[in-house]
């Protein structure tokens, strides 16, 4: 594929040195998820204090979700904003769509609890925080393509969380190094919420 010189120049110029390696990128994504939890908690507080309406809370929460997935996607490109393609943005968008659906159910639950007088800051903050790990899914979807297309990787392996893991994640880990083709057939990524660990997945991927 031919890449215009201007694009290369722009891409190189805008790369983030702090995100040169996969390890640094993963660290940044985890850091961004922590920021998301803090922002989400602050937003929950504003809702509970009556400073914002439920509709405003819902809108702002979705914006936070969108920013989380967008920044995770850029991190997967090593921080090169100019390297983001429409396809990448499409992955981000599809992720947001999925999370927005959960957020709509969440908003309904919040409204019901508020009407019943059972709304607590801890409850809302905790549930909002569960959305943070979904950024990992976006990151690895885009990072896997980047590894194959730009780094010439052919294989991938599933790395377990150092803390706690569910049976299904252990099964994926036990596959060892597998081809990216096989991995694509499995169609699962850390943080996608599709396994027993649900939104708590803290696994990662490695490429070679």
């Amino acid at each position, binding site marked *: 594929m031919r890449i215009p010189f201007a694009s290369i120049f722009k891409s190189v110029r805008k790369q*983030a040195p*702090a*995100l040169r390696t996969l390890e640094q990128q993963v*660290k*940044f994504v985890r*850091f*961004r998820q922590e*920021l998301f939890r803090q922002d989400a908690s602050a937003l929950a507080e504003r809702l509970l204090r009556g400073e914002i309406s439920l509709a405003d809370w819902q*809108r702002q929460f*979705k*914006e936070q979700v*969108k*920013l989380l997935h*967008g*920044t995770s996607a*850029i*991190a997967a490109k090593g*921080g090169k*904003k100019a390297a*983001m393609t*429409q*396809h990448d*943005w*499409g*992955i*981000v*968008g*599809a992720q*947001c*769509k999925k999370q*927005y*659906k959960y957020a*709509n159910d969440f908003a309904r639950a919040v409204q019901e609890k508020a009407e019943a007088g059972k709304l607590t800051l801890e409850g809302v903050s905790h549930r909002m925080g569960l959305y943070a790990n979904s950024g990992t899914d976006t990151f690895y979807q885009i990072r896997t393509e980047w590894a194959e297309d730009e780094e010439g990787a052919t294989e991938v392996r599933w790395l377990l969380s150092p803390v706690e893991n569910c049976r299904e994640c252990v099964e994926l880990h036990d596959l060892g190094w597998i081809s990216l083709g096989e991995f694509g057939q499995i169609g699962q990524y850390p943080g996608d919420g599709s396994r027993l660990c649900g939104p708590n997945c803290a696994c990662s991927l490695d490429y070679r």
Partner: protein
Amino acid sequence: MSYIEFDPEKHKTAFADGRLFEIQAGLPNENRQGVSRLVKVTEQAVYEDALASPWFFAVQVGGEIEKQLDRLDLGQPLPTAEALGGWRITADNVRRIEADFDRSLALFEQQEGR
């Protein structure tokens, strides 16, 4: 094949939720039925496509829906596929995401002592 352009500011909530009901609400009653069908098919077309996004504002339509669109007065001509260049994220969203990335990266680098 034609494209219908959604205004992300005007329809953002409805489009983000995949419901698009605000578009319906903004149309005269006689057009609601056609748009309801459009919404249903559009949702399927958009969200089964890997390129789909809650804030991509161009949705490809064709066949029966294209005919229905021809009968609707949406108040603006439908742009051609060439004019839209396919799927696109709105510039405003890209700007906000990039700004957030810069802010997050600065905080990250600060924490890492860079």
